[in-house]
């Protein structure tokens, strides 16, 4: 099998220590904080108020507009209040529905197998996905129902199921492929049906032999499905890079994968779609990886949305005392947290706890123009110029001349920089200033 890849990228230490750890289900914590903004797009509108009784899987917040997603109660209980709570990715606090579980964990509607679910029409699939509040579980959390209903003038011929999981430490997708390969493929089957594609690629990096073995076993039952082993390199799992590696098509600047007739979905999203269509089960839990040298109970866990990081850490056997850095997501693109109060949201692919030993701090020096960042940039940008322009406050020029908006913040530049410049933070800042000025 030829291993395809893209230009640029880096090889961070992969540290996939938890590949061998099976997915464990965590109990429901004492309190759940379910943020209203768990997806790209407008925050959901709450449907419940203080004191309401909710059942597991009941819709507690409705999608506000097209690019938005609804949110369901992760367990049964009482709504204590709706408060401003620290948010793991928004860089500020945001509204969250606080639910006190009653311990019964009763379903609002028991997920039952639907008849003839394999023959669902595209509309039915999109609708089921929308009602289940499924969003991209790879991290960006883009509402899935939008992704799988492309506009009329765009046709999709290739569906790519993204199991590359190039972020170091994270093994959640890897475990999903090992344990639920068939569900992933059924999910892919439904996506293919929804968009009318002709072929499906399952992309896995070559450092996950167990997952590859498992997928190649079950893939025979699905015609027009193909397992593609890609080279282990960061960021192989980035949408545009994966499309380039598998189909040799290049997504145009500012464009979407559908512009080159592709659709990329994460493996966990595929499972969520499968569950939504087959059983009508809403997205109320997800698999995440707890890892890092500060985590005593490192492993892969099935966690209810809204569980605080603190609860996850406590339920898995605490952390060592010298943890100085907590990251939501992977070490390359994840966001460090200032409190363990933040809840797990739909896009939380991992919780990493690092001690003094691994989370080293560096002083930022001046750029020495070595252009290492240019060599590794998978988007073909000039990170050094971007940072220069942003520092000077010339945001529009940075966008027009150097493609500020094209940066996907993968962090390869910051990873290789000998001067330890925080390119990604500068770029994020620049993008925000750009939004504010327009």
């Amino acid at each position: 099998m030829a291993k395809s890849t893209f230009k640029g990228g880096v090889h961070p230490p992969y540290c996939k220590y938890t590949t061998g750890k099976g997915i464990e289900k965590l109990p429901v914590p004492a309190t759940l904080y379910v943020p209203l903004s768990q997806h790209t797009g407008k925050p959901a509108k709450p449907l419940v108020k203080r004191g309401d009784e909710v059942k597991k899987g009941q819709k507690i917040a409705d999608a506000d507009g097209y690019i938005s997603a609804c949110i369901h109660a992760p367990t049964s209980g009482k709504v204590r209040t709706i408060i401003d709570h620290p948010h793991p990715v928004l860089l500020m606090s945001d509204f969250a529905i606080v639910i006190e579980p009653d311990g019964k964990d009763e379903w609002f509607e028991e997920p039952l197998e639907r008849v003839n679910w394999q023959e669902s029409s595209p509309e039915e699939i999109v609708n089921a996905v929308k009602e289940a509040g499924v969003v991209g579980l790879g991290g960006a959390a883009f509402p899935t129902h939008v992704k799988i209903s492309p506009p009329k003038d765009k046709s999709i011929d290739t569906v790519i199921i993204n199991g590359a999981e190039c972020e170091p430490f994270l093994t959640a997708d890897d475990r999903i492929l090992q344990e639920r390969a068939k569900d992933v493929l059924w999910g892919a089957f439904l996506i293919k049906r929804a968009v009318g594609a002709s072929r499906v690629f399952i992309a896995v990096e070559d450092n996950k032999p167990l997952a590859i073995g498992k997928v190649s076993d079950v893939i025979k039952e699905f015609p027009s499905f193909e397992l593609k082993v890609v080279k282990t390199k960061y960021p192989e799992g980035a949408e545009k890079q994966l499309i380039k590696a598998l189909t040799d098509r290049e997504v145009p600047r500012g464009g979407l994968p559908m512009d080159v007739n592709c659709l990329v979905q994460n493996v966990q999203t595929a499972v969520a779609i499968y569950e939504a269509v087959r059983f009508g089960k809403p997205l109320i839990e997800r698999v995440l990886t707890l890892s890092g040298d500060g985590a005593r109970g490192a492993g892969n866990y099935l966690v209810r949305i809204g569980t605080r990081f603190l609860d996850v850490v406590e339920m898995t056997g605490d952390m060592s005392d010298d943890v100085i850095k907590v990251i939501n997501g992977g070490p390359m693109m994840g966001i460090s947290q200032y409190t363990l109060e933040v809840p797990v949201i739909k896009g939380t692919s991992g919780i990493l706890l690092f001690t003094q030993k691994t989370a080293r701090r560096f002083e930022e020096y001046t750029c020495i123009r070595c252009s290492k960042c240019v060599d590794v940039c998978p988007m073909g940008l000039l990170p050094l110029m971007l940072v220069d322009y942003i520092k000077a406050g010339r945001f529009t020029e940075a966008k027009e001349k150097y493609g500020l908006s094209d940066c996907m913040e993968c962090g390869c530049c910051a990873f290789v920089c000998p001067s330890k410049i925080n390119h990604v933070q500068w770029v994020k800042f620049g993008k925000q200033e750009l939004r504010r000025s327009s």
Partner: protein
Amino acid sequence: MNTIIISLLLTLALGLLSGLFLMISFKKFYVQEDPRVEMLLEALPGANCGACGYSGCVGYAEALAGGKETNAAKCGPGGQEVADKVAHIIGLDTVSIVKRVAKVMCNGTKENAVRRSDYDGVKSCRVADFTLKGDRGCVYGCLGFGDCVNVCQFGAMFMGDDGLPHIINEKCTACGKCVEACPHDLIELVPLDRKVFVFCKNLDRGPVAKSYCKVACIGCGLCVKQAPEGAMKLEKNLVIIVDAEKVDEVADKVVGVCPTKAIALDEKFAEVKTV
């Protein structure tokens, strides 16, 4: 020999022609320039700092000469001396200007303000503010990375050991660059002779504010009662000085009642070290 004469004549003719051309164009395209602009430029300090609100000294001089600007006292670095000269040149009445200086309205030193996290990113106030509003518990206070110090052209600011920027009043020209640079709008230009200030911009409720800063304004309103009617007011858990002169008259009383010393006399800062 002939060649020499021809070339000489030719050069002469060319010289005459171009001279004539220059003379005509000089007469034809003559721009009436206000001689006062030149005089004003000589009077102005030439710092091009922009404190006057124009792009530089030339802009201000032209506006003054053109009659668009009638305030002769806009030059911060120049002070009284330049204002007098400018007024004299333009023929405006002399105005006495009160020297203004920049002042940081936060006393969240390393000791006073609690940190909630260990920030490890770009050392810039604006970037830190965008990233979770910085590392201190108080999201209204000084971030302490010195964006204001970096933009000061006059060397009038420095970062103190206490983690706050300090202003050297003698050097400050009230150009306002630091005011713009501060993402939390903590710096204000105030008359040098003002005495009492509220060194806090915190809008959180009292107990919350107190939990992360020893010198936060907790909005108790004790000082408002001490001051004359309408001189101070409480707004969003924060005391605001409305009439500085009236408050200055009862300075000791107002400062004395503050339980957190958020409202204080400026002298407290005047004694602060130089670099």
